[in-house]
């Protein structure tokens, strides 16, 4: 059974290779090939899952070593896979959602002449993401980590002719690289501390290691997670990443890739458990991002960017949970999975809306679409209910668990975290309701575009709606399925461990509080956007609104400090290189030339002056000889 693990990766990798190298003759069948390979991977995943269920809870980890990758004295990196319950969860999520989105893309990308390549990239992404989650050591994980970064780069910039897309892709890759730097330093630290960076031996060695080192490793891993999962302070790329085709946003920037940071932290639980300081920072980052994303999500008029803010915020929840340690690991992953369903569904819905609206993204130019695209409305609505935590739906369970876990952290910390999560839940309810109202309710607000084409909203084709429906099912039922009898907790516990913590308030109280804030959030949104007509042009808004529209000024900060500063730095360095470093060399050459020119003048053509030189030379010669003897 172990030997099947490599097949998980091999299938989409082969698909990518075939599609990208195949050339134009595959154009007509490319999307089917891509989907087929993704589905094959999913099937392998399911087979492995069934096999895993058949074994005992402690016997569920599978290993497969393919070959020795980088064998250097004292440094062993293998291409080896490890499939345990945590990895399995991700494998199913990735291949499952991935396959659905492949199917969706068949319709969505129908008119794109480069559709074959799009599927090639998607397959490449699946392969990289699978490597990321089934690697048995950090270096191979790093391969997947950068691989998804590459796929994300290619897909965000898929419409390269748009400068904004190309810029966004570059930005995403760069910001991710900063995070990657953290991961590579973490690996180096592990190498010097543990002498290895394979999961098993490294986690075993944590007991013998000083807390300082572990904290350092933890913080570096957190930096990596921040980059990949768009957490403060490396969150700025996610909004721009919405330049990519919507299926990409759904798959990569909502359901799977961005959650890799959560995976990393949960996977490295052994390290974080022994480094409470690092955990504290993780929690803080999660809490800050949770609010940050939510606030940004409130202000955006671009439907995808609003959803992106929401993604950021939801991952903040997960990171916060992961930072809580064994109390939260399971819930982090659980929220991750449910979020994968409903957020992918929301994005697909948004894509469907855009598909019907000539790729218009401004929600202020939507309105009343429920009549035109009922399937989208229903699936989107279910996703909406799930995310705000409507009782009984997926988000209700998973988010509630995290809020409880936050309180269970105990002490002042627990209270603060609990309140923050509650506040986040309120804001979530607000901005999601806003999106819902602006898009599907109210009057139609769209106008003809510059060329006079009025959009004709229509329902999307089957290939798009079916994945949306499937995901809607997930959004509705996954949470309940996981939570009933703590199924999910028991499933993951052998890997992550679990701890109930000391909740200062009862679960019921928390649930009640959650309900209250939810209603408040929805109500505010209703008063602002449901009761009166929405202006097509956004009002100026308060200072906070304006700041939130600009991603709370973080991009401006980046622009001024990093971009401008960097430009000045490189420009002045170019100048320095030219004038100073090179100048010294050229100056030496020039001064030689000058010296030569001056000395040359001594050769004035007059025989008598030559004689003077000889005479003088002789005199010096004699004088020097005599002087030497005198000395």
């Amino acid at each position: 059974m172990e030997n099947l693990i490599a097949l998980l990766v091999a299938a989409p990798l082969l698909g990518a290779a075939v599609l990208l190298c195949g050339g134009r003759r595959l154009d007509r069948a490319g999307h089917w090939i891509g989907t087929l390979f993704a589905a094959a991977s999913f099937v392998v995943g399911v087979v492995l899952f069934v096999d895993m269920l058949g074994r005992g809870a402690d016997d569920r980890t599978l290993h497969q070593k393919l070959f020795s990758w980088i064998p250097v004295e004292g440094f062993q990196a293998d291409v080896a896979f490890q499939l345990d319950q945590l990895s399995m969860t991700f494998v199913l999520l990735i291949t499952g959602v991935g396959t659905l989105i492949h199917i969706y893309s068949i319709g969505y990308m129908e008119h794109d002449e480069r559709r074959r390549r799009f599927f090639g990239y998607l397959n490449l992404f699946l392969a990289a993401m699978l490597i990321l989650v089934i690697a048995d050591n950090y270096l191979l994980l790093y391969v997947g980590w950068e691989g998804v970064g590459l796929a994300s780069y290619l897909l965000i910039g898929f419409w390269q002719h748009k400068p904004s897309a190309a810029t966004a892709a570059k930005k995403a890759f760069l910001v991710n690289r900063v995070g990657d730097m953290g991961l590579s330093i973490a690996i180096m630290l592990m190498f010097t501390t543990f002498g290895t960076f394979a999961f098993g031996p490294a986690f075993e060695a944590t007991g013998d290691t000083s807390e300082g080192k572990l904290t350092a490793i933890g913080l570096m891993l957190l930096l990596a997670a921040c980059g990949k999962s768009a957490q403060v302070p490396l969150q700025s790329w996610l909004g721009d990443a919405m330049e990519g085709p919507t299926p990409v946003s759904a798959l990569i920037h909502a359901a799977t890739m961005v959650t890799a940071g959560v995976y990393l932290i949960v996977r490295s639980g052994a390290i974080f458990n022994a480094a409470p300081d690092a955990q504290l920072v993780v929690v803080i980052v999660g809490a800050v991002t949770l609010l940050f994303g939510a606030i940004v999500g409130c202000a955006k008029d671009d439907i995808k960017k609003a959803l992106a803010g929401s993604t950021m915020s939801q991952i903040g929840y997960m990171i916060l949970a992961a930072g809580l340690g064994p109390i939260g690991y399971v819930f982090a992953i659980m929220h991750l999975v449910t979020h994968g369903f409903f957020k992918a569904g929301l994005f697909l819905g948004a894509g469907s809306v855009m598909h019907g609206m000539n790729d218009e993204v401004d929600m202020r130019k939507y309105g009343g679409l429920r009549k035109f695209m009922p399937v989208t409305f229903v699936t989107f609505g279910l996703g909406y209910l799930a995310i705000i935590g409507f009782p009984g739906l997926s988000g209700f369970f998973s988010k509630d668990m995290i809020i409880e876990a936050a309180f269970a952290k105990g002490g002042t910390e627990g209270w603060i975290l609990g309140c923050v999560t509650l506040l986040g839940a309120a804001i979530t309810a607000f901005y999601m309701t806003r999106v819902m109202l602006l898009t599907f309710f109210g009057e139609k607000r769209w106008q003809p575009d510059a060329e006079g084409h009025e959009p004709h909203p229509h329902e999307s084709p089957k290939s798009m709606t079916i994945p949306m429906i499937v995901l809607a099912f997930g959004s509705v039922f996954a949470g309940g399925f996981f939570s009933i009898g703590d199924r999910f907790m028991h499933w993951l516990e052998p890997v992550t461990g679990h701890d109930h913590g000391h909740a200062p308030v009862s679960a019921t109280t928390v649930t009640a509080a959650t309900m209250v804030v939810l209603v408040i959030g929805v109500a505010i949104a209703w008063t602002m956007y449901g009761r009166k007509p929405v202006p097509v042009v956004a009002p100026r808004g308060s200072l906070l609104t304006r700041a939130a529209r600009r991603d709370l000024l973080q991009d401006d900060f980046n622009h001024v400090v990093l971009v401008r500063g960097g430009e000045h730095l490189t420009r002045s360095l170019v100048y320095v290189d030219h004038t100073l470093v090179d100048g010294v060399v050229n100056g030496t050459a020039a001064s030689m030339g000058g010296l030569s020119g001056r000395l040359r003048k001594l050769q004035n053509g007059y025989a008598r002056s030559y004689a003077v030189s000889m005479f003088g030379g002789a005199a010096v010669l004699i004088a020097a000889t005599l002087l030497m003897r005198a000395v």
Partner: protein
Amino acid sequence: MSATAVHSLWTRAGEVTTAAPGDKFTAPTIEYAQLAPVLIVVGVAVLGILVEAFVPRRARYTTQVFLTVVALAAAFAAVVGLAAGGYAGEKAQIAAMGAVAVDGPTLFLQGTILLVSMVSVFTFAERRLDPAAHGNRVDSFAAQAGAVPGSDSEKAAVKAGFTTTEVFPLVLFSVAGMLVFPAANDLLTLFIALEVFSLPLYLLCAVARRKRLMSQEAAVKYFLLGAFSSAFLLFGIALLYGYAGTVSYAGIANVVDGTVQEIDPALASTMGNDALLLIGAAMILMGLLFKVGAVPFHMWTPDVYQGAPTPVTGFMAAATKVAAFGALLRLLYVVLPGLTWDLRPVMWGVAIVTMLGGAIVAITQTDIKRLLAYSSIAHAGFILAGVIAASPEGVSSVLFYLGVYSFVTVGAFAVVTLVRDAGGEATHLSKWAGLGRRSPLTAAVFAVFLLSFAGIPLTSGFSGKFAVFKAAADGGAGGLVVVGVISSAIAAFFYLRVIVLMFFSEPKADGPTVAVPSPLTMTTIAVGVAVTLVLGLAPQYFLDLASQAGVFVR
């Protein structure tokens, strides 16, 4: 020196003189065999004079060329015979009543001089480069050197097909002097040899066919400065004689070392006066440094190299340097080893300013012959570094360098003779632009020579430079090696400039043409290239030769 002491010496010395018995004269013995190379050359030179007098004008050129080549070849054969006979090693001895030393360095240098002269003579004899004047093929020399440039008499001479075939006996005389110069074993022979090879060179400089004013100017400058320097040399000889009471190298060396057998009172007095020794040694050195073209006695070099007929320049640059360095070596190693520590700083100084000065001033030169002149100055500096090493290794490295350098130099100047425009040789660098496009082979050959000058590995120049620097470093002159390395880097710049010009510049529309030479010049160039490459890749045989030859007889 106090006056009274000398006065008393003077009187007593007088007594000794009067007491000298008159019956001690014995007939001198001359080892003709050992002197054969010199004698052959001188003999044929005299014969050449007779040829000028008695052979009809039309046949003179052929006769002279034939005689000269035969003489040089025979002399070279004699040198080889002597070396094979062991005179370079165990049988090395002083010949001709102590006037001449026949030993390893002598034979090596004589052999080098003879071979270099031979290939130079080929360029002298070249008659295909200039367009024929009035149906007569002409060489690089004036039709009638005495005629005023541009005058009717000159035109008449050209029309009549006159040529200055006297250059061949002149070259032979000069070669004869050069053969003796490094072999000279007393100061008198040194001086006479110097004059014998210098005087014909003064004349040779003056007889260019083209640019005659420059040629004459070069001759005047060379002559006046040369005579000036030989006056210094002679004064130095007089002082050394005064110091040691003898002019024989061995005798002086003994006095300098203090190992002299019998010390008469006069000698005792002068011996005590180091000023005589030091000033004398410095002035002789100056005379020799003038000949090798070391800074600050180098000022004649660029002007003379530029003005002289190019074949003469090549000959002069190569052979003179060999002979002069040979004499310098012998002087320093045989006569003045006791002064090594006194002269060392001075020689260091000269070597350093020579290396740097030559290299730096060359950077801005615009005439190829002047450029090569400065290059020769820089090379003199490198060789001086080896001379200073003061070890047998130093000697052999210098011998090797001289051999290497002379062939490359002759070859390089031979190439210069090929590049011509309407006014004769096109020596201005701007004219050389794009030569690589017009005649890649010529340019490539010249580039090989330049690379060898620059000391790029796999050329003979590198082997030589390495040998010299290694000897210098071994001899404790590491500082000189560093300076040498720096000036090599500077020197590389101007060699490269020429290469850049030849290969990377677009040819000018009015650029020069490259004449197709006769087999004579081709031989010269081919020998140069062959020596450059062979001694670059496999120098071992010649290094062996040089190191076997590296011991002076006393």
